[in-house]
């Protein structure tokens, strides 16, 4: 796999942007500026960027409650994202969706969904639609380890398999469904083993390495685009923060934290890029500062934006 220096740096920048965005959201939430529930994806950036950077602009993604990173990776506008989190009229959903329901159809991002498992069948439908329209679009379905225990996972993967739909299902296995460890809720060692039940390829990636994810998801995407059907890829990862902001994380094991902090995806990608002479410490600091400033601009945009008119509550129920 040969990636240009420009593309590698673009991937790195995007991962840093996700981290800066999430870190700033954490602060805004703590400050009381963002209402509702916030699920942060710090630690999981390699999956969003590594997968999505394979896609054509018109390929679909379906995202879940921990989905800020997916939209940023797909090219979403962080001003509109932040404004939506703040509940403002200028937000992606005019303040009607919030953090769990960001959607950007211009970037073929079919929304973030707060019902765990629902992304599986929605993505299956997008894949079916692409097949019926002969559009050659591929759909990425992001789901968590918890979602892989729902009934929808079974029905959706089975349907995609029997119809050879152009979909890659990506399990972001951060080991915890809220507070419940996957070792309690599943008997299989790797969740990708479940692919066998549907007669489709399954693979587990446990490195949290953006380039390994890029390569392996890329192969699955090519397979889907060539009409060979869906794949299941499990990316083991770790969320550095709680399930939601406010979670005291009493269930986390110290040893896991130590192991996975060493596998911080930004840290390992940075070290690799420096080792290969693509990045320097100075450049890395400059990128970090640049992304931080972008996020601060987004916060300013959100703060300066008006709230929706209360009467807008009544709009957008029916087309």
């Amino acid at each position: 796999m040969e990636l240009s220096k420009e593309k590698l740096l673009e991937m790195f920048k995007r991962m840093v942007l996700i981290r800066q965005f999430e870190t700033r959201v954490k602060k805004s939430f703590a400050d009381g500026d963002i209402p509702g529930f916030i699920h942060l994806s710090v630690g999981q950036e390699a999956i969003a960027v590594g997968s999505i950077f394979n896609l054509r602009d018109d390929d679909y993604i379906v995202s879940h409650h921990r989905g800020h990173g997916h939209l940023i990776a797909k090219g979403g506008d962080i001003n509109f994202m932040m404004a939506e989190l703040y509940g403002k009229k200028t937000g992606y959903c005019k303040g009607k969706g919030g953090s769990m329901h960001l959607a950007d159809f211009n970037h073929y991002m079919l929304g973030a969904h707060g019902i765990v498992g629902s992304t599986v069948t929605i993505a299956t439908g997008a894949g079916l639609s692409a097949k019926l329209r002969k559009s050659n679009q591929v759909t990425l379905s992001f789901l968590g380890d918890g979602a892989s225990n729902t009934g929808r996972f079974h029905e959706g993967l089975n349907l995609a398999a029997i119809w050879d739909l152009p979909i890659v299902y990506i399990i972001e296995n951060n080991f915890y469904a809220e507070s419940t460890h996957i070792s309690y809720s599943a008997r299989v060692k790797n969740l990708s083993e479940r692919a066998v039940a549907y007669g489709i390829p399954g693979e587990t990636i446990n490195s949290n390495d953006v380039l390994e994810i890029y390569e392996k998801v890329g192969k699955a995407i090519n397979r889907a685009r060539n009409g060979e059907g869906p794949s299941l890829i499990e990316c083991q990862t770790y969320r550095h923060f709680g399930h939601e902001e406010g979670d005291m994380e009493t269930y986390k094991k110290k040893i896991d934290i130590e192991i996975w902090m060493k596998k911080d995806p930004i840290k390992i990608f940075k070290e690799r890029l420096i080792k290969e002479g693509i990045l320097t410490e100075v450049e890395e600091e400059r990128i970090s500062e640049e992304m931080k400033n972008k996020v601060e601009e987004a916060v300013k945009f959100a703060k300066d934006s008006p709230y929706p008119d209360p009467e807008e509550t009544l709009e957008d129920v029916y087309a």
Partner: protein
Amino acid sequence: MKILTYREAIIEALREEMERDPSIFIMGEDIGEHWQGSVKEFEGLWPQFGSERIRETPISETAILGCAVGAAMTGMRPIANIMFAAFLGVPMDEIFSQLTKMRYMFGGKTKMPVTIMCLSGGGMGAAAQHSVCLEGMLMSIPGLKLVSPSTPYDAKGLLKSAIRDDNPVVFFQNLFLTVSGFKGEVPDGEYTIPLGEAIVKREGDDVTVVAIGSRVHTALSAATRLEKENISVEVIDPRCMVPLDEKTIIDSVKKTGKLVILDEEPKTGSAASEIAAIIAEKAIEYLDAPIKRVCAPNTPVPFSPVLEKYWMPDEEDLITAVKIVI
């Protein structure tokens, strides 16, 4: 005009719409080559349109509805067949948390042109898990439209409108009218019936009877009998519970001053209850008797013919109610 059965009229609507618009396809169980619908409600469509567009699924109601959501957001106009209305309980999350909420929670970014078809209603000895009407329960979900046709003419015209609508619509195909070969006149050419227009089936002066689905025919039969006793009954078929044509009902109540609602659902939370509440709120000054709801008891649908007959709100129940308010 020609005479078609209720079932044939529905098939004709599907055929015409699928010929007109290539983005329409049907997903469901046993709708393809062999059965073409569990009561042949899709007969002739698979031979014409093939397996791509008459897309037979495994027994996966959740995936059928979930796929319809994903396909509708990406340029298709899916028809999701859930066989029996009672089976809507399986993909209910897809209906009330996805299909009907996505447009709203995404700030109007997407349309959701999905038609859900299902066989609705009892009277067939099919027992509790294959006999329900769900209008009342589904009326409480904002974002959904509900169609409950009682004749071949209405079924065809309303189904075409439902398919063309950019919102999710549940089309309740009455099971009894489908399998009993119920016939009626249908125009030869193209027509549609707008969603949300009630029809006055019979004019009268003494009492307004609003009846839903197969109960419309029960009401018409009761009205004929009551006429012989010099009681003049106006029968209204709302045809759609959402959007509900409140005006036609209110106008009728203004004339008659009395309202009886006949609905094949357990009374609590029924469509009849919602209609009663609307009229009590908006037109109570025109009423000179209490509103009566003639509904099923608050029990599941029983199996034995003796029990199901007792359960089903019928002509006798309606006549008794009308005589109380007169």
